[in-house]
């Protein structure tokens, strides 16, 4: 029970941290380069530690992000649920890949997220292609190895 509680606390603090990183005010220079932290966190845990999250909790975290950013309610929730499901389905293959292949998979997943977001924006009538979203996907893939190591380290520190 104690262990479960600790897991719950750990995963939700990670999710909250990612949401805060996404919405925290930063200087104008950095404002364009906001990485999709929540998507990265969700992909990581759906591949490497599936005991911590499920589709429903991922969906709720997306809903929180939607409300905090003032976007269409359910947009990020839908994208995150799909990404999480896909990562979970292919987790056995991905886990044994070398790092550069994992990075490729992450690139594909994040691009898929951007495509779904474009599609939703198109349907709701505000289609706008923002080059920075794609640049950020690229940066996210480049920092993925560091991101992964940090999360692994945190896991080994806070979980049994």
């Amino acid at each position, binding site marked *: 029970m104690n262990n479960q509680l600790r897991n719950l606390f750990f995963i939700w603090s990670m999710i909250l941290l990612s949401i805060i990183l996404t919405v925290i005010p930063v200087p104008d220079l950095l404002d364009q380069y906001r990485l999709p932290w929540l998507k990265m966190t969700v992909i990581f845990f759906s591949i490497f530690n599936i005991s911590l999250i499920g589709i429903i909790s991922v969906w709720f975290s997306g809903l929180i992000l939607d409300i905090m950013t003032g976007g269409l309610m359910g947009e990020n929730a839908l994208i995150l649920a799909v990404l999480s499901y896909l990562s979970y389905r292919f987790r056995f293959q991905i886990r044994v890949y070398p790092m550069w292949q994992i990075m490729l998979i992450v690139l594909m997943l994040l691009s898929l997220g951007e495509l779904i977001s474009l599609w939703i924006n198109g349907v709701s009538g505000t289609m*706008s292609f923002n080059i920075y979203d794609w640049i950020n996907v690229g940066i996210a893939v480049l920092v993925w190895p560091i991101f992964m190591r940090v999360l692994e380290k945190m896991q080994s520190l806070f979980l049994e």
Partner: protein
Amino acid sequence: MPLYPQQRINRFEKNFSAYRLIIVVIISCVLMYQDYQKNYLPALRVYLSASLYPVQYLINLPKNFIQKLNTNFSERKKILQENKVLKKDNFELRSQIQQVYKLESENKRLYDLLDSQPKKDNSYIFADIIAVSPIAEKHQIVINKGSRDNVVIGSAVADSNGILGHIIRDQIFGSEVLLISDREHAIPIEIVRTSLRSIAVGIGNYNELRINTLPTNTDVKTGDVLITSGLGGRYPEGFPVGTIKDVINNPGESFLEISVTPFGNLKTINEIWVIQPTEVN
């Protein structure tokens, strides 16, 4: 009881089952559709955002605090000078306002004579900005007055220079404002010099609005001042919006491409007014 490999896999299968995904996707689609249509869900969204308001406030606290600190510690000399300018401004404005009282009463009397609808008076609520939308193409801000302070959805928001936007969502303790520079925003305007009415739309740039609906033979010049026309009922009549920066007449096009510089400081907003119409007899 030992766990067989198959069982171990299936332990988490429930959390990630395809059924859950399908259900969640359907719920998301319904939510998005309802949020887009704005007919059933506003209340749900209001309560959700109100519950997240403290988080938002805390996240933006350091930035707002540093801003306040900066203004508090700005030099004494500067403040004295500012005070001087403000006193002068105040004196000028007060002497001008003396005539306004007379004009206002005269105007009201004439309206009464015409037996038209009662003129609408405006009430002003002072508010501070709390957060700016982190998404670059969404020009939205969050202010610290909501339905608890009688702010109504749809009210116009302005700073001392001109119109900034209007309130689109309520968060009980705060509210979300859509700026006039957002792509989804259009504001009915009137050119002061010619009383010509049109619509200025946002293009996702903080320093520019655009008018695309005036034919090429229209009388517009660079430097013309735009005010709100009051049509559509959302924005009160007669508030300054911006000046015309550029008039481009593309050969072969039947409409002018007019770019407008807004008066309000959309990028560096600090204190704002919420303008609300109140009926007077």
